[in-house]
């Protein structure tokens, strides 16, 4: 048992960190200021670069976290103070009054309907109104309402009180007061997120003065189907559909007019996303123009997303520095005035202008950190060390997500998992103080009644949900009719079935009437299934013998005016559930043993960090490196991205790994065979050709892939043909070895060599920073040196923008080229000559250079495909490993028990590799910390008598959970890996594959029951 950890911030980063910690068996306090979990991501419509629906992917994650037995969530709660040190913090929090008894509120929303007061809705960026009693957003968790005391008539003026009258459960409490608590924790994770710029940072853009200038976050709500305009792009001034829209990138970021000189890292991509989604929404759009300085599509899959947008008709990218926005007084149109890339003034009118506002730290959070003596950087974000990127200056306090700098969702998630892993080390080393609220009650071995051979006896419970169901559906009639359905032994109507005493009543009825199936007709199973299952288990019945009918959310709420039909529908739905219940089976989650050891494949910085992290959490690790020594690509590094000597870091890391007893290192080895599955892998390690050593077979529970990447081999720009043409790596080597020519006069650098063009349509991410850094170092050595960097877009994202500015200040020249007009390099006796087109001046130039440095692409390891097949994990089209989910599972593979970090995932710098390695280790530790693995209950199964071995199920299974049995030649499901999607079930022609909980039989019974009244009358047949 570990001491709790506090996670501050209930956005995606906080949720991920809390969930991972919980999964590692660490109790968590998750504290969120707003009334609901979800944070910024819950406000988003779609996410780049996959256009995933934000709610769709976030909602399950929120509910997993919120319902986690180790996680205690405090929403609407502020952190007041933190005292103490690593291992022993005392955190003072204040739970603000919602004026609602959270345990009693069912979230039915009747009160919201009746509330007469309307106020601007913060969730919708104030674009529409909400009531004084409100749900933060519809899918908000916890599913309870909140009273806004500033606007509530009862609280302010002592009148109204309608909500109290409406509420049948007595959840309203106008007298509620705030509550202060002191929580003892071992570590703290700051995931406090950000504020978006207000929009008025750059006064020339006239935000608030011009109504048709809006911020991107406001626009996001416009795009959302659940937003104020239900996805229609309207102008606020006249409600007209906007046909011509401009997006202004870097509205406030990278701008000296604002104090935020950094790059906000996500605005280019979200603007592209918004442009694409807008295009999808409407064919009426005439033009969508994106005004940008550089397109910073540096992440995995971003470049091709950008290319898609570029190729989309109606979307135009304009390299243009926007100076000001003016309003046409007549019609409210906005005039965008700027300076294009040829240095000419431009002017164009738009219906709507969207400001790509950047991310800034939450001022209160910054203040708080300052108060806690946590170092913040000059912009107010938590300051972190490049080589320990998740730790703050205060030991035991970690940070993740945008709190430490602008970044996108996957990076936030990576950092969250990494921070969780680090916090877990501290928490697990501390004894748990008594009593810990979240301490896990050892799962009781409830002996469920064995009902397989009993005649089916169904109990039906119909919930009124106060007036919510009862006001529309004739519940007494439905209950009465349900009693006459086949196999129904008991039917009962209940006012609020989810109230604690009524939950107990279900259990009592099961015992009393000897029921062996239960049908609950109430609200949606998505929120209440777990609760009713628990109630059923209290009655000694297997919880999977309970079936729910959704007669509220999908019936009484949506057919309020058609009471008779709603009643009929309710009865149909209950009939279906009764029929399904009759065929439902007792299911269980079975335990599978697992091993404690972890494998890390690849001994570069990512691999070493992951190994070390896993060992520090307390697990034995086998580290496998194909080279003779550890180190990987970092061996060729001279400086880190922030300009620190890389060699020392590497040496320290190597020593730590070598001195760690729990780590067993195999250099010169390669995994040649992988067998087994999560918790139970067997790897065969073979010595590399030419190396001595014995083949070894080692067993372990998880595998972290950290196999790195390489540098492109090319002959473009005379690479490899001239001694004057070097790669960035060569340059660093020379600098490291003090091997540079002394009398250099003129140096050129060319960017994107082999990147961002066929056949590698991705950005190599690190080279802009590398080039800028090298240039700075060269300049610092010799200020007279003439350096020109030929680039396509400068992608010094985040705080690296500072370096870019510094380089320019030092006199480094940056000249842009188009991919259609690449520079040409020739060598003669006189030396190198470089010809390029000066875009601004519009002329061809040819210059002599002493040295040409090429930023060569980062390329995937060629042998990745072998490992990919062995591990049954996919590669993307560029040859990098493909994670389970680009947004929310960035270090997991779809195959359980295999994790990913470092360059094997895609190009990234040292700091990012370290974060990701920590994250991968953390995710892996989730499996290793468990005593045993628990399978899902609703998994697929295969009737081998029917299986004809066609292997279609194997093909379609996204989790590699089905394989062909060596013994029978038939398909079999690995219950540990199966997630119960049912893809195999639908593709199986002989219906050998079926799905527990949603079996063909159950679904057919449901269907038959619904349409029982449509069956034809008895056929007049022979014999009559």
């Amino acid at each position, binding site marked *: 048992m570990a001491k709790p950890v506090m996670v501050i911030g209930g956005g995606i980063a906080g949720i991920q960190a809390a969930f991972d910690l919980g999964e590692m068996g660490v109790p968590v306090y998750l504290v969120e200021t707003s009334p609901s979990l979800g944070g910024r991501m819950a406000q988003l419509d779609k996410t780049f670069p996959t256009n995933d629906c934000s709610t769709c992917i976030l909602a399950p994650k929120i509910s997993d976290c919120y319902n986690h037995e180790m996680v205690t969530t405090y929403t609407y709660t502020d952190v007041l103070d933190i005292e103490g040190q690593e291992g022993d913090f005392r955190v003072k929090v204040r739970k603000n009054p919602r004026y609602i008894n959270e345990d009693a509120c069912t979230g039915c929303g009747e009160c919201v309907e009746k509330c007469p007061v309307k106020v601007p809705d913060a969730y919708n960026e104030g674009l529409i109104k909400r009531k004084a009693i409100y749900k933060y957003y519809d899918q908000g968790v916890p599913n309870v309402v909140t009273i806004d005391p500033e606007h509530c008539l009862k609280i302010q003026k002592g009148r109204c009180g309608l909500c109290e009258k409406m509420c049948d459960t007595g959840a309203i409490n106008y007298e509620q007061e705030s509550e202060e608590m002191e929580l003892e924790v071992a570590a703290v994770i700051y995931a406090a997120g950000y504020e978006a710029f207000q929009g008025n940072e750059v006064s020339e853009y006239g935000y608030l003065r011009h109504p048709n200038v809006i911020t991107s976050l406001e626009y996001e709500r416009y795009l959302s189907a659940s937003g104020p305009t239900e996805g229609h792009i309207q102008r606020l001034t006249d409600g007209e559909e906007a046909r011509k829209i401009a997006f202004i990138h870097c509205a406030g970021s990278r701008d000296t007019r604002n104090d935020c000189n950094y790059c906000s890292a996500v605005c280019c991509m979200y603007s592209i996303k918004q442009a694409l989604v807008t295009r999808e929404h409407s064919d009426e759009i005439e033009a969508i123009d994106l005004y940008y300085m550089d397109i910073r599509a540096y992440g995995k899959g971003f470049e091709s997303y950008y290319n898609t947008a570029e190729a989309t008709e109606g979307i135009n990218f304009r390299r243009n520095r926007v100076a000001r926005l003016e309003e046409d007084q007549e019609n409210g149109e906005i005039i965008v005035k700027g300076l294009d890339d040829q240095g000419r003034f431009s002017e164009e009118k738009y219906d709507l202008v969207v400001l790509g506002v950047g991310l800034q730290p939450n001022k209160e959070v910054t203040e708080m950190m300052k108060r806690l003596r946590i170092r913040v950087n000059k912009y107010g974000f938590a300051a972190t060390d490049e080589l320990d990127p998740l730790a703050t200056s205060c030991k035991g306090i970690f940070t993740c997500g945008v709190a430490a700098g602008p970044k996108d969702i996957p990076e936030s998630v990576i950092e969250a998992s990494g921070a969780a892993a680090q916090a877990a080390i501290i928490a697990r080393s501390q004894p748990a103080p008594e009593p810990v609220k979240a301490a896990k009650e050892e799962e009781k071995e409830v002996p469920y009644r064995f009902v397989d051979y009993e005649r089916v006896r169904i109990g039906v419970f119909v919930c009124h949900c106060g007036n919510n169901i009862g006001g529309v559906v004739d519940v007494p009639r439905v209950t009465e009719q349900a009693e006459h359905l086949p196999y129904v032994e008991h039917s009962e109507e209940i006012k609020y079935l989810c109230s604690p005493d009524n939950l107990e009543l279900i259990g009592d009825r099961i015992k009393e009437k000897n029921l062996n199936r239960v049908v609950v007709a109430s609200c949606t199973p998505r929120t209440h299934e777990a609760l009713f299952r628990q109630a059923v288990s209290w009655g000694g019945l297997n919880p999977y013998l309970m079936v729910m009918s959704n007669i509220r959310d999908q019936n009484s709420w949506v057919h309020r005016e058609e009471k008779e039909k709603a009643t009929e529908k309710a009865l149909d739905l209950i009939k279906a559930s009764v029929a399904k219940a009759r065929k439902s089976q007792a299911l269980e989650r079975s335990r599978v043993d697992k091993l404690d050891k972890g494998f890390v494949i690849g001994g570069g910085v990512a691999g070493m960090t992951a190994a070390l992290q896993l060992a520090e959490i307390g697990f034995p690790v086998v580290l496998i490196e194909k080279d003779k020594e550890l180190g990987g690509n970092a061996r060729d590094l001279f400086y880190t991205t922030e300009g620190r000597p890389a060699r020392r870091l590497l040496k320290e890391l190597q020593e730590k790994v070598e001195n760690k007893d729990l780590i067993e290192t195999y250099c010169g080895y390669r995994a040649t065979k992988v067998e087994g599955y999560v918790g139970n892998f067997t790897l065969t390690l073979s010595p590399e050709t030419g190396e001595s050593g014995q083949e070894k077979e080692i067993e372990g529970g998880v595998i972290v892939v950290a196999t790195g990447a390489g540098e492109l081999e090319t002959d473009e720009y005379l690479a490899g043909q001239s001694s004057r043409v070097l790669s960035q790596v060569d340059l660093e080597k020379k600098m490291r070895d003090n091997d540079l020519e002394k009398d250099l006069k003129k140096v050129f650098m060319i960017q994107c060599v082999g990147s961002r063009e066929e056949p590698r349509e991705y950005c190599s991410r690190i080279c802009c920073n590398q080039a800028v850094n090298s240039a700075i170092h060269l300049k610092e050595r010799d200020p007279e040196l003439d350096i020109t960097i030929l680039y396509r877009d400068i992608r010094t994202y985040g705080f690296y923008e500072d370096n870019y500015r510094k380089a320019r200040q030092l006199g480094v020249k940056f000249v842009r080229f188009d991919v259609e007009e690449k520079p040409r390099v020739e060598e003669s006796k006189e030396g190198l000559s470089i010809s390029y087109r000066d875009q601004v001046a519009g002329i061809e130039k040819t210059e002599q250079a002493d040295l040409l440095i090429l930023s060569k692409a980062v390329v995937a390891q060629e042998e990745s495909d072998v490992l990919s097949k062995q591990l049954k994990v996919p590669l993307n089209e560029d040859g990098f490993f493909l994670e389970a989910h680009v947004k929310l599972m960035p270090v997991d593979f779809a195959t359980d028990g295999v994790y990913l970090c470092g360059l094997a995932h895609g190009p990234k710098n040292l700091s990012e590799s370290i974060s990701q390695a920590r994250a991968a280790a953390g995710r892996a530790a989730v499996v290793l910390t468990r005593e045993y693995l628990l399978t899902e209950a609703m998994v697929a199964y295969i009737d081998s*008598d*029917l*299986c*004809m*071995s*066609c*292997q*279609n199920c194997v*093909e*379609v299974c996204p989790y590699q959970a089905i394989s062909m049995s060596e013994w029978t030649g038939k398909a079999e499901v690995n219950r540990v890996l199966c997630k119960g999607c049912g893809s195999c079930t639908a*593709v199986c*022609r*002989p*219906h050998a594959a079926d799905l527990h909980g949603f*079996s*063909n*039989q159950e679904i*057919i*019974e449901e269907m038959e029951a619904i349409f029982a009244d449509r069956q*034809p009358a008895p*056929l007049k047949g022979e014999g009559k």
Partner: protein
Amino acid sequence: METNYSEISKKIQEISRKLLEEGRVDRVIGFERGEFTGEMTPVLVTDPEEAENLLFNPECEMMLAKYLLDYGGSTTGIVAKPCDTRAITVYLAEELIKRDEIVIIGINDCQGLEENEACDECGVRNPVVADEEIGQPRQEPVETDIKDDLKDMSLGERFAYFQEEFSRCIRCYACREACFVCSCEECFVDSNQPQWVGFSVGLRDNFTFHLMRAMHMAGRCINCGACELACPEAINMRALTRNLYRVAQEVYEFEPGLDPEEKTLFATYRLNDSEQGFLD
């Protein structure tokens, strides 16, 4: 050039005899002429002496590939028309048979069969895969279209047409058994837990049966016509499968039985697959 069937038959006899004598196969599946009926019937030859009974002509309308499923674990030679080789390819794609357990005696330049209308729609005139080839492969491609003679009917007319057709079905399952695609151990019609389709031979269940059957064919049916030929009631059930064949061809550029490496239609997808007819 006139196809010389006696020449082909002689070649088949020679090859089969050799395969059996050399022990390369345990049996050869081919055709012989019935003693009393005078009609062609599939035959299994295990004795090299009996190889002389093997014949081939345009009356050999049955698909032989399905017999291969019965003989896993031993080697079988098979006289294969191009359609048989497509069927074999479909089996190979799903690994229902092993390539090294069969010896394919492929017949090149297929001229089609006498009574099989599906042959007019078939563009594959040479074996897709063969170990022994008989005759010269046809060089010039055959341009054919999948016919659609119900195209001009209205929706109601088509429904009535199929009602009429399926009302005749006696559920003898000759279509199922003659079809190489139907390779389930236990057919869905025989399942009662769950019961996919009623056992009574009424139009409601007959229609349901034929729709479900067609859905199982989708992406694997090669439009060989065996179902139609086998049906004692002359039901035009091929109209359904043929249409799906055409749709798969047009929408997914998918034709089964041409490449043993290709996954079946429903076991794969493309990100930009058509959504024609979906509600937007």
